[in-house]
């Protein structure tokens, strides 16, 4: 890579809570290093100063929920050489994809004083349903270490280390005792994508599936395991229907347990 010109980094926001892009600011110790390695060209959360595109690396947060955003994402794609979606909203539609299982008009009529002003799509969808995406980084929120890993891999022209295997492997690497086997705690770890470092099981809780489905999730078998531990159909619907509700394997599993 030519060292005289730093690659331009842009951060874009769609329907989201901002938590994922905040993990870039949360890098603290490494933030100066990031600023040294890239030109932060568009990052409204950090600075109002905007450098014109095109951009070498775009980080896209949030899901597509409005007709306007469905247009805007195409402009961003055109202005970006390498586009990475970050977080459960951008990769799976996010918690707001719960609308996909219902009628969004029912919500707008309750929440807003003048629902007629609200122009929204019937579904919240991941970025990859609208444009080609070069890389997806999972998590609700993403792990800042993994974000740095992706940026570092991009800058150094290598593959990022973000394994798609289960959270169970992360538990075992840490020496954790399996909460499901040793305590009967229902856990989504066996069907969930690694990346959090097995945060919840480390604190004796079952995995909530924040990183979405792992590479080959057998959700049906895990649901049967949960049932043996006493989980009811409604528990299974709620377990699979959270931050990654609209990710295909989780969506199908929650629908299978809905009356």
């Amino acid at each position, binding site marked *: *890579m030519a060292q005289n010109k730093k690659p331009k980094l842009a951060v874009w926001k769609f329907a989201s809570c901002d938590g994922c892009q905040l993990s870039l600011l949360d890098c603290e110790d*490494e933030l100066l*290093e*990031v600023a*040294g*390695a890239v030109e932060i060209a568009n990052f409204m959360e950090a600075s109002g100063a905007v450098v014109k595109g095109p951009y070498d690396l775009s980080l896209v947060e949030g899901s597509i929920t409005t007709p306007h955003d469905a247009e805007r994402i195409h402009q961003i794609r055109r202005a970006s050489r390498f586009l990475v979606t970050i977080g459960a909203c951008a990769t799976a539609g996010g918690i707001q994809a719960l609308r996909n299982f219902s009628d969004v008009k029912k919500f707008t009529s309750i929440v807003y004083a003048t629902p007629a002003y609200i122009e929204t799509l019937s579904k919240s969808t991941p970025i990859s349903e609208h444009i080609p995406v070069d890389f997806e980084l999972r998590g609700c929120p993403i792990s800042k270490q993994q974000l*740095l*890993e992706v*940026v*570092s*891999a991009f*800058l*150094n022209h*290598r593959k990022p*280390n973000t*394994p*798609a*295997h*289960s959270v*169970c*492997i992360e538990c*075992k*690497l*840490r*020496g*954790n*005792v*399996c909460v*499901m*086997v*040793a*305590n009967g705690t229902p*856990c989504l*770890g*066996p*069907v969930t994508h690694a990346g959090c470092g097995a945060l919840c099981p480390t604190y*004796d809780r079952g995995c909530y599936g924040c990183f979405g489905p*792992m*590479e*080959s999730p*057998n959700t*049906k*078998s*895990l649901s*049967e*395991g949960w049932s043996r531990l006493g989980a009811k159909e409604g528990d299974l619907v709620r377990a699979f229907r959270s931050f990654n509700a609209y990710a295909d394997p989780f969506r199908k599993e929650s629908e299978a347990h809905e009356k």
Partner: protein
Amino acid sequence: MTDRLHDQEYILDRDHLQDLLDTLRNSGRRVIGPVLRDGAIVYDDLASVKNLPIGRTDIQERGLYRVMHREDQALFGYNVGPHSWKKFLSPPRTRLWQGDRSSGMVQISNEPPETQKMAFIGVRSCELHAIAIQDRVFIQSEFTSPPYQARREQTFIVAVNCGQAGGTCFCMSMKTGPQATRGFDLALTEVIENGRHYFVVEVGTEAGMTVFEQLPHTVAGEAQKSAAESAVAAATAQMHRQMDTSDIKDLLYRNYRNPRWDDVASRCLACANCTMVCPTCFCSTVEDTTNLKGDHAERWQRWDSCFTMDLSYIHGGSVRASTRSRYRQWMTHKLATWIDQFGTSGCVGCGRCISWCPVGIDITEEVRAIRKSEESFLPPTEGHHGDT
């Protein structure tokens, strides 16, 4: 036939077990043994006999593990838990080297050789066999792992004979226990009877003798030896799980296309727990990392599993894309191709893969099902190709 220094057996009183730990520590060893943590008996640093799982045992079944109270104050009255000694001999993550670039030159620094001596307390017979299997993989095969070899050669092993069988144990079938017969420096059998609590000790090596000589001890009498034998016999009698290993290599080779693989794949989570807890599974991957500036790189080795897609990823795809092919690969390697590759089975019958499978898949049951299916199912005779 027990592989030990001589026929003499000794008595070490329960109250002098701390002396053994102290002696090992004073000789510069990191003392590691069973401790109770997070609802399981795991292997970790062991400061004192007081930290052993005193008066505890465990119940284990398919996909189930619970620690329970015992009626006595046994120190080793439990069976193997979620950890195995590979955690220390072949750690989950190890840095292999790091490199720095400055003014166009790359400087590689290798990791310094491992110098920390270790002592393992409470190694079971199946685990001695597992360590011997990993020795074959990492030391006695075509390529050696110098870090493993260094750790291994500096490890002092205090074995403990099992006085009970766990719910998922099947070492009898694999001929790996419950009596420790080789690969130990000292082997203890815990005896609690008539108000006495002591260990019958066998010495396996000169290093074992050097340590043991420093401890207060007596020579074991016939009654004490026979009490130790009864303890191990109790474990033997208790063990109900079995795996018929006759003809097992050919059985699995013959059944490459058995529909049972689809059945187990419908239950298998491909979560890799079985391989992580297995004391012989040795697969690892390497991860290369860089800093943002690109002037510092590191290569790390970490545990991997044949249940991940990445393990068989070559040139654009995974060779074993289906869970069926991955489960079959694991079980066939463990019980059959391992024999061709390393001269022994890769299974020691510890039962960890059964207890720690979140959905309770039982390798002994899978073997039984395949064996039984041959009665009604005639496998095709073609060889192993192309089927994932």
